[in-house]
């Protein structure tokens, strides 16, 4: 199945990565090469095989619902691009 420029633009939007029109051709070319490699696996019959999500058959541990961490938001916000009144600032979302 061949990828198109529309696919590239669609997934770039989903991934929230700006791809300039002049880059899209090159991205398409390289992704198509990689999907050429990936397509090899589609020829193999996997009927009845259980998907393997994880290297060990783990079940997630449960723990008591207690506060385990201290509030460190000041420390964590020292590396934020823009902060005001302990809040992370982003462009206006709701008019």
């Amino acid at each position, binding site marked *: 199945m061949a990828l198109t420029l529309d696919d590239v633009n669609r*997934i770039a939007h989903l991934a929230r990565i700006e791809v300039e029109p002049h880059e899209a051709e090159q*991205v398409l070319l390289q992704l198509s090469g990689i999907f050429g*490699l990936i397509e090899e*696996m589609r020829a193999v019959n996997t009927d009845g*095989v259980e998907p393997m999500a994880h290297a060990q058959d783990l079940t997630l541990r449960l*723990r008591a619902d207690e506060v385990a961490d201290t509030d*460190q938001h000041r420390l964590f916000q020292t590396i934020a691009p823009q902060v005001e009144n302990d809040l992370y600032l982003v462009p206006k979302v709701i008019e």
Partner: protein
Amino acid sequence: MLNFTIKQLAVELAARRLSSVEVTGFFIKRIKGLGKVFNAFISVDEERSLSAARAADVLLRQGKGCTLTGIPFAHKDIFCAQGWRTTCGSKMLSNFVAPYDAHVIERFNTAGAVIAGKTNMDEFAMGSSNETSYFGPVRNPWNTAAVPGGSSGGSAAAVAARLVPAATGTDTGGSIRQPAALTGVCGIKPTYGVVSRYGMIAFASSLDQAGPFARTAEDLALMLNTMAGFDARDSTSLERKTEDYTRDLSKPVRGLRIGLPSEFFADGVASDVARAVDAAITEFRKLGCETVEVRLPNMKLSVPVYYVLAPAEASSNLSRYDGVRYGHRAPEYVDLVDMYKKSRAQGFGAEVKRRILIGTYVLSHGYYDAYYIKAQKLRRLIAQDFTDAFTKCDVIMGPTSPSTAFNIGEKAGDPVQMYLSDIYTIAVNLAGLPGMSIPAGFGDTNLPVGLQLIGNYFDEARMLNLAHQYQQATDWHVRMPEGLEEP
């Protein structure tokens, strides 16, 4: 001091014939001088390192030291270390100073070890040559025109060039074993779940695992003793009894069965690599090991399967880099979505963007079953091949990499060729097994060849035993690149 192992340094430090300040100063001087040639480090902080060395000397004076106390280690720049810039090789995190310690760093700190610096790496650990780093490529100490492998290329080069006695790395598809092979040092990726990934920047969470680089198998065992163990902060960390990974080093290996998969010795491997690996296996036969042929028929599918699963997981893990809480934010944008898109387009390099796009595609509506679920089914077949093979053998051996180190720029423009250089290592991550690479000679152009050992789950001690016995009988691991004596 140049060629002292961790074991030897520990003896000198405990006997107070050397101080940590002397040892740390010696290696930092090399990092800041000779080290520049290889571009192996992203961050060096001499004052911080020496202050840790002084603290270690106090412990040693009080007789409170342990094996790693006072020894300088380099850490891959994927591990958060409080107060250290932690970049993951990316512009996205080029100003990120970690507010906390990764579990691995915490363990080294508790042991009184010294952080000698943070090593260069492929951006977000995505690469096999260390060319995708925002901080420039790392050069191979055996030939500076060649790559050191990746993604933990800085750590491997630092150990090979004797800039540090040992280092840490991470391995998602071969990122410890392949650079270890290409630079002629030892590296082990433990069983998935043995080392906590808390504070280790995530790439593909069902595959990522941390491990050590050193010059001997014995040193790897000593480091693993510090690195391994349960940590509740990583949901995949396994609750197991504490192991002493040095316990079997001296055991005889007579009678152990080495599985040789025909797929590892087929057309794809360069003849000089095959020759060196054959010679290594002959050496193991001399040590009394038996060899049996095994089959891994689905191994050829591991590269396509990996390039669905790892990008899928990466696209999810890397969605956190949005320019809001930390990391790069674009200087100009029109609205929130534009801020995300521009910050990510500017902050990530080409390979990282490529993998996020692949991952986004294979997880998107209408393609999930055809790619992602299909790859997960094949993953089970690949893992099952190993389970079958281990009914006939105790350990699997083969080449780590199909060739010796290639030149910088040789594969950089062709992602598919680059991906295929991990053909022998990826299947091990998919199965979650422990894998290791040790030096096993040199190829036609005098570049190192690595022998890969693959063990059954939790068989690290046996792999280290085999490697240690091999290193008692051979001297490949003590060979050193030329011209590195002077700092």
